[in-house]
């Protein structure tokens, strides 16, 4: 009895086979449709980079503005590279691009040798930083202190931090909210102008303020 049912079930499956095959083909065709699109575009400063898109079946390199590849499952290779239609970009990414945060604004303040005294010119930029952070309704103001390569590491780490702290104090006094401000010391480790050790370089004696 159980056997007969099994046989009958088997037959009914065979009856449906063409339908199942068709459904399978449709599913495969759908699976073959692009599920993901990856497009390389210039950044806000017009620079173009590179990206490599890899699935378990192959990879594609994007290197020109508008280069696009599409993927349809991990086990299929990414499509050959085509050029994305600007209308497709606008329609698909309009929402995301509309809320894209503006690029950060960077200010560099210079100091007199071995001191936390801002140069007269740089003292004036404090007002610019304050107005930029108000205009943008900034969510963060990060200050990093730096030195040139004269003096010991220990001295430079401390001096770089003091420089950053001084800038913080000036910004606080002008009404920038304390919770926005973060301070780091890079010592002599991140020079604007790389120099050998022991070289006085005014452009490296600085604090960099990045307003987001």
């Amino acid at each position, binding site marked *: 009895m159980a056997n007969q049912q099994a046989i009958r079930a088997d037959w009914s499956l065979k009856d449906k086979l063409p339908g199942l095959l068709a459904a399978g083909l449709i599913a495969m065709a759908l699976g073959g449709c692009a599920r993901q699109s*990856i*497009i390389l*575009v210039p950044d806000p400063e017009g620079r173009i980079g590179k990206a*490599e898109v890899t699935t378990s079946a192959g990879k594609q390199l994007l290197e020109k503005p508008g280069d696009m590849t599409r993927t*349809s499952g991990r086990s299929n290779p990414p499509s050959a590279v085509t050029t*994305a239609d600007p209308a497709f970009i606008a329609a*698909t*990414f309009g929402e995301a691009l509309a809320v894209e945060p503006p690029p950060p604004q960077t200010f560099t303040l210079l100091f007199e040798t071995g001191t936390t005294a801002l140069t007269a010119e740089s003292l004036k930029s404090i007002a610019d930083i304050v107005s930029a952070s108000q205009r943008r309704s900034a969510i963060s103001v990060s200050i990093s202190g730096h030195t040139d390569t004269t003096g010991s590491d220990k001295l430079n780490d401390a001096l770089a931090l003091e420089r950053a702290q001084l800038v913080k104090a000036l910004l606080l006094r002008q009404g920038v909210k304390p919770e926005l401000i973060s301070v780091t010391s890079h010592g002599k480790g991140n020079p604007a102008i790389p120099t050998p050790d022991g070289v006085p370089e005014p452009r490296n004696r600085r604090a960099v303020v990045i307003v*987001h």
Partner: protein
Amino acid sequence: MKISASAFFIAMLISAPAIAQQPPETIGHIQNIEGLASIQRDGVTLPGAAGAALYRGDRIRTGKPGAMGIVLTDDTTISLGSNSELSLEDYAFKPKEGKFALALRMMKGTFSYITGQIVKLAPETARVQTPDATLAVRGTKLLIEIKE
């Protein structure tokens, strides 16, 4: 046995406040929000808000309609269109120690992704994962659409 158990308990009492006091490191902020958006953190869903801090491991989501722009501390900038989901799986940006990591997982939706200093300083440490593919990004801006 009893002594070691109570010693363990005391050690826990001492260490627990120390752990609780250690605030998680802010790795970025939400800069812009339109419509519905949320952050999922340690299994809890928090409403998204402009200026909110982001931590490693956060999963951020937009509804429909919804959109959100975030900036990480290395200047990595990502914006999400509606019905999108992104996980900030790993992140380290410590230039002084030469420590860098960036692992993003994009689950669904539309994204605009502008690379930051991590990609500039240590490109091999940055990785973006989508359901189908791994993206090795060497700068500077990518648009990604992931249909459900």
